[in-house]
């Protein structure tokens, strides 16, 4: 069997993603639509939260993907540092905006949800706080990429930032939970999946989660392809300048 590393070759990657991307994109659209439509229109209202509970079908999948995107960036950065496959650095670069969007969706849907449930858009609950911090990490990571001209230098620096940042992100999350001990009001109000949520909610929720995962995959593939094209363009321009 061919090694997975051969997809680190940009040409091979472009070739494969050429037919993979449309499939993933369509699947993402279909699965997400099914999950969201089922969730919004074909589930009963919660007896305490009313119809606002349905925002969970956007909120939880996006929150999940926001964290997974960071994990993917971490893995891709490690691959770049250890094996120096350019495609993996570009994939990490492409994952960041997607993760940022997911984080933003989680924050916004959470705020929209919080208004009717808690009576306020925002509380400094540990989970919310650690998400805000994650948002800042994404912003910093993207800003660092965008301010470095040389692509390899950018890949190196952002990879180190991602590694160091991951450690501190974990520390921050732990710190946030430590900090508001006994104060936070979130958990008591939230539904605990598995304990109180029944299948009428769970099934569409899982479907939307898969849908969001596919959306994320499609975005990363698309972003990586764009980055590879940009590199090719730059190389061509350079070559032209030489002649």
């Amino acid at each position: 069997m061919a090694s997975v590393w051969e997809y680190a070759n940009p040409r091979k990657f472009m070739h494969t993603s050429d037919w993979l991307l449309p499939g993933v994109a369509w699947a993402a659209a279909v699965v997400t639509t099914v999950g969201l439509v089922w969730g919004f229109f074909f589930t009963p209202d919660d007896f305490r939260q009313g119809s606002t509970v349905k925002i969970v079908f956007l909120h939880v999948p996006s929150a999940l993907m926001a964290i997974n995107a960071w994990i993917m960036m971490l893995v891709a950065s490690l691959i770049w540092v250890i094996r120096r496959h350019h495609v993996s650095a570009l994939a990490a670069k492409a994952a960041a905006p997607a993760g940022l969007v997911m984080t933003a969706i989680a924050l916004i849907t959470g705020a929209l949800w919080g208004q009717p449930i808690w009576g306020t858009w925002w509380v400094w609950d540990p989970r919310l706080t650690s998400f805000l911090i994650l948002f800042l990490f994404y912003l910093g990571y993207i800003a660092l990429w965008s301010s470095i001209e040389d692509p390899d230098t950018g890949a190196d620096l952002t990879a180190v930032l991602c590694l160091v940042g991951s450690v501190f992100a974990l520390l921050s999350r732990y710190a946030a939970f430590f900090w508001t001990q006994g104060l936070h009001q979130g958990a008591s109000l939230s539904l605990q999946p598995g304990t109180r949520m029944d299948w009428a909610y769970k099934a569409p929720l899982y479907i939307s989660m898969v849908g969001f995962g596919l959306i994320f995959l499609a975005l990363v593939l698309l972003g990586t392809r764009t980055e590879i094209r940009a590199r090719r363009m730059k190389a061509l321009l350079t070559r032209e300048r030489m002649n």
Partner: protein
Amino acid sequence: MIALLTRDLRLALRAGGGFGLGLAFYLILAVLVPLGVGPEPTVLAAIAPGVLWVGALLACLLSLDRIFALDWEDGSLDLLATAPIPLEGVVTLKALAHWITTALPLVLAAPVLGVLLNLPAPAYGWLVLSLLLGTPALSVIGTFGAALTVGLKRGGLLLSLLVLPLYIPTLVYGAELVSRGALGLPVSTPLALLAGITAGSVALLPFASAAVLRINLR
């Protein structure tokens, strides 16, 4: 190698070297907050630990770009990179110089500013202790951020944005330590965590800083 430290200290003390910049900022913050928030002693006392820690952190944050930027601009950093001292040593000494010139004055000034903010009496000791324990981490983390952005065009902004999330655990434990101290609650957990973060950053981050500096210089 000690020459680097003495040079940095001397430069900071000379006119324009930026010594006292952080201190002035800290003082300004302590004056502005009561003016903005209003003079009620109970409100001030409640927020004093947090404000004093946030102020110290911002004062460190704002002086970070001096760590490498000046040496970069006048070409010294290129020359240091070709000099016979390891870059790990350079970044450690730079962090130490930053701590001595920026953080140490803050630690010493904090109790005085505590008076301005009605900090409760039992908290003074904890304030100084927490800053003494936490600021080395701020300097070392900041040096990492400065090394990451040296020579970059969007330096200042980017530096704050990158370093801020890294500062959060230190801030949380530091401020929590003082708040608990003020209320007479047990402090051993935040104390241990704060010490742990500082020890870990001081031991490990210089290697990361030297690595990114090397990447940036090439």
